[in-house]
């Protein structure tokens, strides 16, 4: 469904047709449209606070500084702010992702040694389009093409955990420092956990049929995309992701506002504070059966932090919820023997705990 820019049919089975080259004028037109759009975006973004004040205080007549007034202001300001950020970033990442396909990523990773491969795989996990339900086919595709097992795991850990939705929400609600910490430590966990699994030489804990599988080498040639089609990808990503996630964002911010108002300060400090050393492993364990996307969990995380929970503990909780999920384990059981699944959970879980303790110590 591409009402605006019909995506040209990629026809991998026959000779791919070269995309018609953009004329200089068309290129300039695209650049100008993009710049104008970006300018408009910033113009609105910078007025959001004033607009929220107008809505809360002038229109609704709430008192500045009053409890309800501040809560409503918070909601009117944060909701459009986060949604606008999400739209812009998802659009940009959608365009970026049109340069990467799982096929291309596999080609890059197939010849790589471990260590270098682990780093590359974790980084490519961010930009390669990936739907969590295709984790198993992708796993098989990588392993049968000669991507080392540990490198494949680095990709599979990073792809769902380090994603633009998590980063935008962390940035919007908690600031760029927390977003950067999450991205760097998330990549770190993916790289180290994958590397460790590679060291453990667990290839024979793949299900037998996977190891015996001989796949005809089907050539799926790269499709050449025009810029119009790449913009189309960006728009499709916005429709898909923002269309799916906006309700969580609004609900999350509303719940966050409620906690903000009614849960006493320091309530979480005794349970999830720094002094409670046992809270990090508990946070990871509790996170495994909980399954949520980044959009649902981050507003909760913000509220926990505000009430005195320690950053490391909260990061560990969040990573565990997103990266280790029971449904994913059940699906992976199709290709992995139980022992490899146990090792996977164990190694990633320990990595996440290390992140938790690290930040509880240094911050």
């Amino acid at each position, binding site marked *: *469904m*591409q009402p605006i820019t*019909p*995506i040209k*049919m*990629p*026809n*991998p*089975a026959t000779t791919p047709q070269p995309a018609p080259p953009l004329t200089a004028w068309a290129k300039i037109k695209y650049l100008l449209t993009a710049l104008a759009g970006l300018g408009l975006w910033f113009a609105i973004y910078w007025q959001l606070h004033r607009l929220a004040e107008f809505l809360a205080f002038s229109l609704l007549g709430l008192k500045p500084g009053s409890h309800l007034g501040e809560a409503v202001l918070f909601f009117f300001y944060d909701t459009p702010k986060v949604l606008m950020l999400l739209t812009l970033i998802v659009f940009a990442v959608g365009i970026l992702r049109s340069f990467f*396909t*799982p*096929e291309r990523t*596999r080609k890059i990773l197939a010849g790589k040694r471990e260590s270098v491969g682990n780093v590359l795989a974790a980084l490519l996990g961010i930009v390669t*389009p990936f*739907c969590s*339900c*295709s984790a*198993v*086919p*992708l796993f*098989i*595709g*990588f392993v*049968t093409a000669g991507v080392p097992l540990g490198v494949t795991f680095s990709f599979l850990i990073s792809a769902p955990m380090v994603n633009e939705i998590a980063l935008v929400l962390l940035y919007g609600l908690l600031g760029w420092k927390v977003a950067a910490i999450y991205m760097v430590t998330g990549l770190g966990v993916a790289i180290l956990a994958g590397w460790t699994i590679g060291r453990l030489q667990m290839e024979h804990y793949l299900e037998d*049929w*996977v190891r015996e*599988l001989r*796949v*005809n*080498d*089907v050539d*799926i040639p790269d499709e050449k995309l025009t810029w119009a089609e790449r913009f189309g990808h960006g728009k499709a990503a916005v429709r898909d992701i923002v269309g799916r996630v906006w309700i969580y964002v609004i609900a999350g911010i509303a719940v966050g506002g409620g906690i903000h108002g009614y849960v006493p300060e320091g309530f979480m400090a005794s349970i999830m504070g720094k002094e409670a050393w046992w809270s990090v492993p508990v946070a990871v364990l509790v996170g495994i059966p909980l399954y949520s996307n980044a959009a649902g969990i981050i507003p909760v995380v913000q509220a926990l932090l505000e009430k005195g929970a320690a950053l490391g503990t909260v990061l560990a909780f969040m990573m565990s919820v997103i990266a280790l999920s029971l449904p994913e384990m059940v*699906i992976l059981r*199709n*290709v992995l023997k139980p022992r490899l699944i146990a090792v996977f959970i164990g190694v990633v879980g320990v990595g996440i705990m290390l992140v938790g303790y690290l930040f509880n110590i240094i911050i």
Partner: protein
Amino acid sequence: MEIKVLGPGCAKCAEAEKIMRAAVEEAGATATIEKISDFQQIAKHGVFSTPAVVIDGQIKCVGKVPSKGEALAWLKK
């Protein structure tokens, strides 16, 4: 014509199947549509990003839901 929609069964895979069925009906083509969700079968087709559409043994698209326009164009050939 033999159409296979490969995908383990998430929302996008169901969407891909729906679009192929609608396209076949619209084009009035005689075709069988089969939904393949077995991982082993999917892997044997050499496909590793889903949903994917295979028509008469030829891979038409991988890793995305095709648009109806695309689907109609494949059916005309």
